[in-house]
């Protein structure tokens, strides 16, 4: 189990680093998609298969395509060769990023209790349980999300149709 976790985590970190280091923007977007798929694998390791499937379906299948469409409409794909990972000011950037990372990681590692591991032994969530939870205690949040998505859809349709009328 831990071997799988380390492999997937390494792929995720590699994808994220390549996403900011590569000059070609399309290559960078594809490495972001690699990161998303590694994340889906990590979700499966956490026994959340529904979330993993939705991650692939939504992030890779829709958000990734959206990013690629946006890249398509730009003209400069190769990027500026003078801007790479080690251009000027890299030391300050590394310092700030490292400080933020430590600020998140240190409390997480020190305050995690080992009891959670034993709780997982008889924890087998199914999609049905997820559905029941969404309907009963969390119905309000689901309604709000649904309304937001509908509003977004209608706004997109209106924006597209008004743009074509001009």
């Amino acid at each position, binding site marked *: 189990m831990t071997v799988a976790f380390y492999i997937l985590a390494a792929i995720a970190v590699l994808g994220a680093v390549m996403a900011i280091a590569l000059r070609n923007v399309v290559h960078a977007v*594809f490495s972001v998609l690699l990161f998303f798929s590694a994340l889906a694998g990590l979700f499966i390791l956490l026994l959340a298969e529904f979330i993993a499937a939705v991650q692939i*379906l939504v992030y890779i299948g829709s958000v*990734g*395509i959206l990013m690629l*469409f946006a890249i*398509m409409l730009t003209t400069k794909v190769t990027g500026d060769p003078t801007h790479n990972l080690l251009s000027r000011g890299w030391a300050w950037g590394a310092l700030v990023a490292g400080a933020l990372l430590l600020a998140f990681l240190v409390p997480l590692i020190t305050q995690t209790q080992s009891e959670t591991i034993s709780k997982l032994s008889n924890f087998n969530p199914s*999609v*049905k349980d997820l559905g029941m939870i969404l309907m009963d205690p969390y119905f309000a949040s689901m309604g709000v999300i649904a309304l937001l998505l509908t509003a977004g859809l209608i706004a997109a349709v209106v924006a597209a149709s008004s743009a074509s009328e001009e």
Partner: protein
Amino acid sequence: MNNFIDYKLIELGQWAVGLFNDYPVVQILVHLLLATLPLALAFMAAFGFSTWLERKGLARIQNRPGPNRVGIFGLLQPLADGIKMLLKEDIVPDRSDKLFHLLAPVMLMVPAFIAIGFLPLGDGLMSLPLDSAILFFFAVGSLNTIAVFMAGWSSRNKYSLLGGMRAVAQMISYEIPLVLSAVTVIMIAGSLSAQEIVASQQIESWLASGNLVKEFFGQILGWHIFKPWGFAGFIFFFVAALAEANRSPFDLPEADSEIIAGHLTEYSGFKYAIFFMAEYISAFAISGIAVTLFLGGWSGPVIAGLPWFIIKIFSLFAVMIWIRGTLPRLRVDQLMGYAWKFLLPLAILNIFVAGFYYFSEQQFGGLTTFIGGWIIGFAILQTAAKGLSRLNKSPTINGKRVYQLVE
């Protein structure tokens, strides 16, 4: 009922795995191989057979005999095609993105082969028996769009790019009616697992009774296609599946006379063969899911199990070939309009009809619901369809068509 072939296959697999009882690591490996390798090989053989079937079928529809020189009835023609594809020179354009040019066919093939693992081939014969198998099928199917885009972009060719964009737009537009029509089935069956969906299409009470006639019909009449929402859902699912697999009449991205093969323009030889194979295998996978969701999976009257499933998949594929021989190609704006303005509202309406049918079944019992539900449900869907088509008609003046884009 007569699923003895399935039981025999399961026994065979268990015996083969049991040979390695002393070596647990090898046993896991053998288990994995047995779960995946026969399936992959069988579907590749089916791909070869289906190319022959398509060429002969289309030829007879078009009043000509089709390939009949290589082997009896041309049965060795796929072999000849394979050898030809292997021996062709592999031309990669100089200014293309070489890594992605190589990765695109691979990325198209991988989701196709994963997707066939989710098909319930028989009673207990499933390669990936997940609890949310149908959802994973759709998730993996969305990776097809990435691969098509990769193919179109990496060729550095304006026709490839345009074809790739159109293909991606078509595939993401038709994913929505596809998933929504599957949602009705999932709603009624109550689970995302393929085995449970197949089980929900068998009328348990009739099967348990000793009456032979009831057992015969209990295997068939429970299929979702015989309910109004299932019938409409099957039509929507099948049309959207044709569009997802880029088959006629939705094959605008890769038609020869349209845009010089679209995103496949710069591919030659073996890579083209892999694209071809991936497309056909994903067509098989989608028809397999259509059979599972609406046509009862492996349940059937006389020869239940794996052979019946294979017969159903091939008959759906034959219907796809039949439609390809009949209909002309849709234009890209007609295609997109059809998905967003016709199929999507109808698929949403179908969910309401399914809910109405479910609750009336609980309220009024089986037979009344069958008759009343068919009349009312079908009436709702038919009026909605007619209304939408009238709404979407191009404008006319005095009964003559007005062309908006032609001056």
